[in-house]
């Protein structure tokens, strides 16, 4: 069963075709890595999945409904690439606000703060946090509603190895509890932490499969090399 089904999706941004009739699927319960170089269309695809991207053709189905449908809004959690939280509020104030919008409890706010390891900074104003801390506030806001599908745009950028490991552990825990995760990244060393991969380049799907499948198909030991080989065989 696929949690997300992308069918010949075509997106035009600023007069340029950014996604070229892209089709792919994301399995339920997977931690799917969305990888590709900068500008390849990762954020655009993510925006289409959460239903905020205007599309020129094709479609996206999410948990059985068209992307962006009203009934999906409580079931999908979204973390934008640039932290989308209020700089002039504290961590806790930010999360309490988003929790009221989602109808989540105060306890859930505290849990989410703990999940992103921000308990000590919970009463600090977000504008005075570091970039990585701010990104974690934004991530916590996406976790609040205990969504069935979590769509995270580069959630681990700028974080140290310990935090990164903790977050990936959290992602897998959430998947074990039944959630589906889509995590974008342009660092290949994160690919190995995913149970499935979508590689995109210039708005086209280069390959999809598990890390092991991609290794086997390309004969490369490192996923970096696998990615490069896929590009070479294409062109």
């Amino acid at each position, binding site marked *: 069963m696929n949690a997300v089904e992308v069918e010949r999706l075509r997106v035009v*941004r*600023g007069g340029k075709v950014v996604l070229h009739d892209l089709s792919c699927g994301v399995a339920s319960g997977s931690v799917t890595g969305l990888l590709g170089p900068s500008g390849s269309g990762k954020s655009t695809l993510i*925006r289409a999945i*959460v*239903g*905020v*991207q*205007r*599309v020129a053709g094709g479609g996206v189905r999410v948990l059985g409904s068209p992307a*962006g449908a*009203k009934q999906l*809004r*409580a079931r*999908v959690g*979204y973390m*934008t690439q*640039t*932290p*989308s*939280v*209020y*700089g*002039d*509020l504290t961590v806790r*104030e930010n999360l309490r*606000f*988003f929790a*009221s*919008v*989602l*109808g989540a409890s105060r306890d859930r706010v505290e849990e989410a703060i703990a999940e992103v390891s921000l308990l000590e900074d919970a009463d600090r*104003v977000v504008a005075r946090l570091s970039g990585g801390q701010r990104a974690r506030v934004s991530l916590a*806001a996406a976790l609040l*509603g205990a969504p069935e599908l979590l769509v995270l745009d580069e959630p681990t950028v700028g974080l140290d190895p310990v935090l990164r490991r903790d977050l990936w552990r959290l992602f897998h825990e959430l998947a074990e509890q039944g959630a589906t995760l889509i995590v974008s990244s342009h660092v290949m060393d994160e690919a190995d932490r995913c149970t499935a991969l979508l590689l995109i380049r210039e708005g086209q799907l280069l390959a999809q499969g598990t890390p092991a499948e991609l290794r086997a198909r390309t004969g490369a030991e490192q996923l970096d090399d696998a990615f490069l080989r896929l590009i070479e065989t294409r062109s």
Partner: protein
Amino acid sequence: MSLRVTLAVAARVLAQLRRDPRTIALIVGVPCLLEALLKELFRGGPVFQHAGPPLLGLFPFVTMFLVTSITMLRERTSGTLERLMTMPLAKLDLLAGYGLAFALVAVVQAAVVSLLSFGLLGLHVEGARIVVVALAVANAVLGSALGLFVSAFAQTEFQAVQFMPAMVFPQILLCGLFVDREAMATWLRWISDALPLTYAYDALARTATGTYGSRFVVDVCVVGGCILVALALGAATLRRRTA
């Protein structure tokens, strides 16, 4: 629409404002200063008595127009609007939350400026003072609603600020405060007829002279209608899907 979400939005906007005491001081202090200046300039005479009440009632319009358009623009550029649009939040919740928050700020602003003007400065109105305050709040909501709408057409905060003179100054010039509407060229009066601030001014002027009449009811209805139209226009500019 959900009351919980509307109130959450209003509480959040107010919490953001509370973090910015200088802005609050300016919102309340500047109109006080201007009323005092007006009084000193005209030595408390008829010009002050004529222009004082409209100034009191129209000031919240200008302030809330600016504050709302900038706050909303920030919401658009910071990505928080994009996040909210993926959440179970009706556009009307967002608009009503903003309107409610800034109406509350306007209550405080109008109350303080009224206390100063009617108390210390000796401003006098024939009608009820509370009507002046109520009209001030209605004008604040109108300003907020228009601010929300124009924020959609500004890409930067510089642009948003420039919308203020463009949208507000012509209305203040043509509302009848500076030149009697009867004395205006016909085409100018037609324009004046089409601008919401004309009715807001007329209601305030009628309160000042205590000659409400049926025209006052018309004025209030027009201002109320304009608020609804501006909110509808604002809602139309809030898009869940963007390019």
